């Protein structure tokens, strides 16, 4: 039984059909890619799955539970994490704080704890910090722990974002163009980091990516989305060479009037 199962999901903004009849089935430990030209509706699909938008129709099942109608903080608590194309970090907070923030729902000390510095608070703070450092190490950003995230190099910021997503201990990770704007070296480092997280946690990953190199390296299965509809799906090589996909990306060779 698939971990994340989307059936016949559609969404329109006003009259614009952004996504129509979309299906996805993602098994534990599987990496699926989603490719498509700009404006095809890829990020909209992420927003629909995580509860930022509510689909006009269709269902999203996660671990056997219906997600439609759930709020983003609820889908996150259930084990659905994501990153953003434009990397939504909190510019003047430290790297460590980013990771601690993602442990919000696990921290139970309250006002008294904070003001009186109770043993409970100290214990929880220490545990959270230890765990956060472990994750920062995993994503090779531990040397930046106490720096403001705004001062980090771009590739490191991306990895902080990913560490923040991973520390909520998700079962499924949605990555929205994790290598956009990266140099080839940074890209290779990111592929390595994704692969490591995947292996270590047997994580299911759903990946939006423009770079076919990344898709080839990581995905077993790829969907090509055009105008909100899946045109073709299959292995990366099948999809990449499919005439319909080539047409969607570079246009028809002959234009008929």
């Amino acid at each position: 039984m698939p971990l994340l199962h989307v059936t016949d999901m559609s969404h329109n903004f006003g009259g614009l059909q952004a996504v129509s009849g979309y299906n996805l089935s993602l098994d534990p430990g599987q990496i699926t890619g989603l490719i498509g030209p700009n404006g095809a509706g890829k990020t909209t699909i992420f927003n629909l799955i995580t509860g930022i938008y509510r689909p006009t129709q269709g269902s999203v099942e996660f671990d056997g539970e219906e997600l439609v109608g759930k709020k983003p903080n609820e889908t996150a608590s259930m084990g659905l994490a994501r990153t953003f194309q434009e990397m939504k970090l909190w510019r003047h907070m430290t790297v460590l704080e980013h990771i601690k923030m993602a442990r919000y729902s696990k921290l139970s000390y309250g006002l008294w704890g904070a003001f009186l510095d109770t043993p409970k608070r100290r214990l929880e703070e220490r545990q959270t910090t230890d765990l956060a450092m472990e994750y920062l190490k995993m994503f090779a950003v531990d040397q930046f722990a106490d720096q403001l995230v705004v001062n980090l190099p771009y590739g490191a910021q991306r990895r902080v974002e990913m560490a923040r997503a991973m520390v909520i201990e998700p079962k499924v990770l949605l990555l929205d163009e994790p290598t956009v704007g990266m140099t080839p070296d940074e890209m290779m480092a990111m592929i390595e980091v994704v692969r490591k997280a995947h292996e270590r946690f047997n994580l299911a990953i759903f990946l939006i990516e423009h770079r076919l190199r990344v898709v080839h390296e990581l995905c077993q299965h790829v969907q090509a989305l055009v105008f909100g509809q899946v045109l073709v799906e299959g292995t990366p090589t099948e999809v990449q060479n499919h005439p319909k996909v080539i047409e969607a990306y570079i246009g028809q060779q002959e234009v008929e009037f």
Partner: protein
Amino acid sequence: MTVNFLMQNLINALQWGSFYALIALGYSMVYSILMLFNFAHGDIFMVGAYIGLGVSLGLLSLFGSGAAAVLPGWVVLVLTILISMFLTAFVGIIVERVGYRPLREAPRASAAITGLMIGIILETANILFLGGSRLKFPQLIESVTYNIGGVYVTNKKIMIVLVSIGLMLALHQLITRTKWGMAMRAMAYDYVVVPLVGVPMNTIAAMTFAIGSALAAAAGILFGLAYPVLDPYMGVSFGWKAFVAAILGGRGSIMGACIAGFMLGFIEIMTVPAIQIMNRLFSLNIGSNFRDLIAYSIVLLILIFRPHGLFGQAYSAKLRL
């Protein structure tokens, strides 16, 4: 005379500034997480003062006053402040739930006039239920005046400044040391992703309104102690001036709101002696009723040179990282 005279005014400025600072914090906190100014906040200050009045009268009738008092005045005062802060926090939560949450995705102008309308509703409700006449705030503690080297300080002024600073420090603790405070700071930088790490955004928004309103209530009670007459419109001009402080401090900046609040109090109070000195030096005849005109011209000048305020950051809300 001059040093004493300046010290005297400085103490008055500290007291006056603490009202502004406490109210300005509410504007700034809400702005930092929701990118909107709660224009009902001045009236929440008014509501807080009235709740304080009700609570203190209730406590006095319960525990007696004057010679028959069971509890000393300062205990009643502390209880009044705490209970009123708690009750006014709920007013803030209701305002957020009814007035702002349904409009979170609406254009900012709609949300802004919501605040104005809630303000009018609160003022009118006050007039309807309490009759619109001015009410006297009970003097819970006896006024004692100390003469320190020719400078006169009352125990109330000292208390007002200390309580205000204490509340600001408590707020600082809350923001830096609790998970809610961390979530508030995170929301100030980017709120879209906050729910996606498992933080219930509505809880944080409600909490922010609650804290801002509680601080305004404290300001209202302290104001009532210093100037013991309450009227339904007391929050209007006072609220706008505190709003000026919030902008002067830098939109959304907590520290900015505190410092600018005190600074505004300082500018306002110090304008009067400055006028007197100018009059004497240049044999002019400017009345002290020019105070606000001159004081706010100075604020305007500061904003011309620092358009983002003292601690504001020169980046737009849309452009992050």
